[in-house]
């Protein structure tokens, strides 16, 4: 055993993890520091290398910018609505279709197809689908009902984006729930059948509670992805009329690239950075305490 301790396994392990840590320090640590410095500096594209520390004025500018709050509200609503819709639809499809998918797994491949396509391309595809002359949706609406609808207009753009996002990512929730549903031990279900439990009772009192942790995780993942949405919204509506469809990601992008407001963009990034890590570590903390309680 002495040979083992002489070789000091922990230092060997540290060496193995070093490349990853160095990579993260360069490509995330350095940007994080630049973010922090620039967020409290007076900076423009001309003075990039000589930022002058100017206190919290950038944060004040963001805080007093109604577009920032509008974008935050958009991201929150968009994330929450799409997460709930995707999970509700996905849960129904996973349970209702599971007898079909169990026997023919290629059905799942068809349902998963939208997940393989870049969200940016899906967004571009909807520009075609909804186009007033070339798009099939307005075409069929005209032929069948004699009227169409301005899908990307000021009032409807938000809901169109919700549908676009939901249709692409419902398969993700469906896949997660299908696997959780399949993982329910068959003894439990059989035992309840012996007790004569009705289908609905079985679903409500046995299967759904067993799937609850997966449902929470799916809601969370989909909320996060919806909250930080960029690609499909950017190519479909951009920030939209009056910034009505600007998510926080789009707000930061446009502040930097379109307005050249580096300080504001960076300050907003720092706010988002702190908020996301605070929320994520909080959730991790709760999750690990839960696990501890169970043990």
């Amino acid at each position, binding site marked *: 055993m002495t040979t083992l301790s002489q070789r000091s396994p922990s230092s060997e*392990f540290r060496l193995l993890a070093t490349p*990853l840590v160095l990579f993260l320090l360069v490509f995330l640590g350095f*940007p994080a520091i630049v973010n922090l410095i620039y967020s409290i500096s007076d900076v423009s594209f001309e003075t990039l290398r000589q930022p002058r520390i100017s206190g919290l004025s950038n944060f004040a500018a963001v805080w007093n910018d109604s577009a920032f709050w509008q974008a935050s509200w958009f991201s929150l609503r968009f994330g929450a609505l799409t997460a709930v819709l995707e999970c509700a639809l996905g849960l129904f499809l996973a349970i209702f279709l599971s007898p079909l998918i169990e026997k023919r797994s290629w059905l799942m491949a068809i349902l998963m197809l939208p997940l393989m396509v*870049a969200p940016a391309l899906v967004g571009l595809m909807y520009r*075609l689908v909804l186009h007033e002359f070339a*798009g099939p949706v307005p075409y069929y609406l005209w032929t069948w009902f004699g009227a169409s609808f301005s899908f990307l207009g000021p009032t409807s753009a938000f809901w169109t984006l919700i549908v676009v996002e939901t249709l692409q990512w419902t398969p993700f929730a469906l896949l997660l729930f299908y696997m959780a549903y399949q993982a329910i031990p068959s003894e439990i279900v059989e035992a309840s059948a012996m007790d004569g439990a009705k289908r609905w009772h079985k679903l409500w009192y046995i299967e759904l509670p067993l799937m609850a942790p997966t449902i929470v995780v799916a809601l969370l993942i989909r909320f996060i992805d919806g909250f930080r949405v960029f*690609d499909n919204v950017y190519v479909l509506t951009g920030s939209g009329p009056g910034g009505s469809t600007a998510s926080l990601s789009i707000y930061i992008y446009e502040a930097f690239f379109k307005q050249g407001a580096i300080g504001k963009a960076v300050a907003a990034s720092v706010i988002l950075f702190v908020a*996301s890590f605070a929320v*994520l570590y909080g959730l991790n903390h709760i999750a690990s305490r839960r696990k501890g309680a169970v043990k």
Partner: protein
Amino acid sequence: MINALRWLVFAVAAFAMNFPILVTLVTSFKSARELSTNPGLWVYAPTLENYATVFTVSDRLNIFLYLANSVAVAALGTLLAVALALPAAYAIGRGRLGERTLLPFIVNLRAVPLIIFAIPLYMMFQWLALLDTRLGLGLILTIVNLPLALVILVNAIRDLPGELDEAALMDGATRFQILTRVIAPLCRPAIVTSLIFGFITAWNEFLFGLMLTTSKAVPITVGASFFFAASGGGVQWGVASAVMVVGALPPVLLGLIMYRQISGSMTAGAVKG
């Protein structure tokens, strides 16, 4: 009876969720003349002229370049991510190194809006002359791929029996030798899964491609949008559809062939992360 209803629900769901893909595929085979009178879901006179246009290189549009860029940056972003994640996953899974610091940080990274790093990365790339290069975009895609690769590999290594390592240690092997000769071969399915999934994710990435490239290193997700403004007049929808089909095909084919592995890895981060 209930089974008929299930099939109906499946058909409606599959149709609705795949609708944009279906429309794009159909439109890509329509001539400009047919499209002006028939925007419906059927092609009466299918043609390949849109694809011919897409694959014709012009001064402004070069689909071969965009595709080659996507292949290069996705390959770099995937291989580098796995190369960095595998030894770290071994240190985390076996050595229990950074289980409470490094691992949760990287897992959380997957949930952070990456735009918060985009602006300093843009400036940093400007200083390092990495803007509009394949190397630069590939390095950023490595960050995008790292979290899931790490979770998949840590889980795979934890599932291997520890006796393997102990036996090799007794024989005088170093940790590095154990990793390359024992662990890595046994983790091959997990490595393949992270490679496939990483490639699809990197191929489909848009935000950094948009921010960090302008002409030489433009990936297909960004290059496809160039075709929407191709001519002076309105969008040529047939051509635009053809380019979207070409851009979506590689990940879709990869996904269809490997969907079992992918469904496992998509849920890896969710269920165990």
